[in-house]
């Protein structure tokens, strides 16, 4: 493949209304795609435009679907192991949050932190998730051990409108601790491919 440039490169004319509308639709595509091929697609889109100011529905639909398709393909290029681990950690964090939710009324702060940990994991911000999980994990373990940590909550923690079982009334605190341990082991940040999209 060679790159051929003509002797004189002409500046493109000022964008028309139609071009601006097409450029907005092209936002459906990931940034790296737009940078590489956006102008090329625009060329074809505008070629048969002849006096239109509004993109025809078929082209609108094609660009939206094409953009989504590009974004999906872009997402799938990550390391499969990293993605699998990320999914597992997300599942564990979600389960921990679910365990705490019935007690949200009594332990609002800790439930909130657990929810934030889940959010951080989902967004790939594992350093944040690690810190939050550490804190909420210590709290959960402290409750299980019957020792006050950070404040005066001691077992049993009684439920509220969202649930009717005491925290750790049925399951073992070891299960919760094991869940946090799995999440904590995965401390390396798992990031989506950086700098694109």
């Amino acid at each position, binding site marked *: 493949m060679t790159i*051929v440039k003509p002797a004189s490169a002409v500046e493109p004319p000022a964008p028309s209304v139609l071009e601006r509308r097409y450029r907005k639709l092209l936002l459906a595509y990931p940034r790296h795609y737009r940078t590489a091929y956006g102008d090329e697609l625009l060329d074809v889109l505008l070629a048969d435009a002849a006096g239109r100011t509004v993109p025809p529905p078929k082209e609108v639909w094609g660009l939206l679907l094409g953009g989504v398709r590009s974004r999906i393909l872009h997402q799938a290029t990550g390391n499969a192991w990293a993605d699998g681990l990320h999914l597992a950690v997300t599942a564990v964090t979600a389960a921990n949050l679910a365990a705490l939710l019935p007690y949200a009324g009594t332990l609002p702060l800790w439930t909130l932190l657990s929810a934030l940990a889940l959010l951080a994991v989902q967004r790939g911000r594992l350093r944040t998730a690690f810190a939050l999980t550490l804190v909420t994990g210590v709290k959960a373990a402290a409750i299980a051990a019957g020792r006050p940590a950070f404040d005066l909550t001691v077992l049993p923690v009684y439920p509220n409108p969202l649930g009717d079982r005491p925290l750790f009334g049925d399951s073992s605190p070891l299960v919760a601790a094991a869940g946090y341990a799995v999440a904590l082991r995965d401390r390396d940040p798992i990031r989506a491919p950086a700098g694109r999209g």
Partner: protein
Amino acid sequence: MPRGTSEVSEPMFFVLAALRAGPLHGHAISKSIKELSGGRVQPSVGTLYGILERLNDRGVITVDREELINGRNRRYFRITDEGRALVEAEARRMQAAASLVLRPAGP
């Protein structure tokens, strides 16, 4: 051999057919498909480029060169040997199927 599925959709078939004569850029492919199919196959630009990318990933077409036109970069695509084999096999498959109806298969 092409990777992945060997299914050839109708627009894909026409893209490959259009490129058999020589490399073309996106807009020329779009016009050629419309002519070859008698106006029947007219994918949107988004769909067309999705097809071009899929065919490129499968190795049945490839980028021949890029040119700067009016300050815009433009890719020219050409069919590969795998692409020629694929479209010819597909054409033969369709011919065999068509002859069941249009002409009884003879000795």
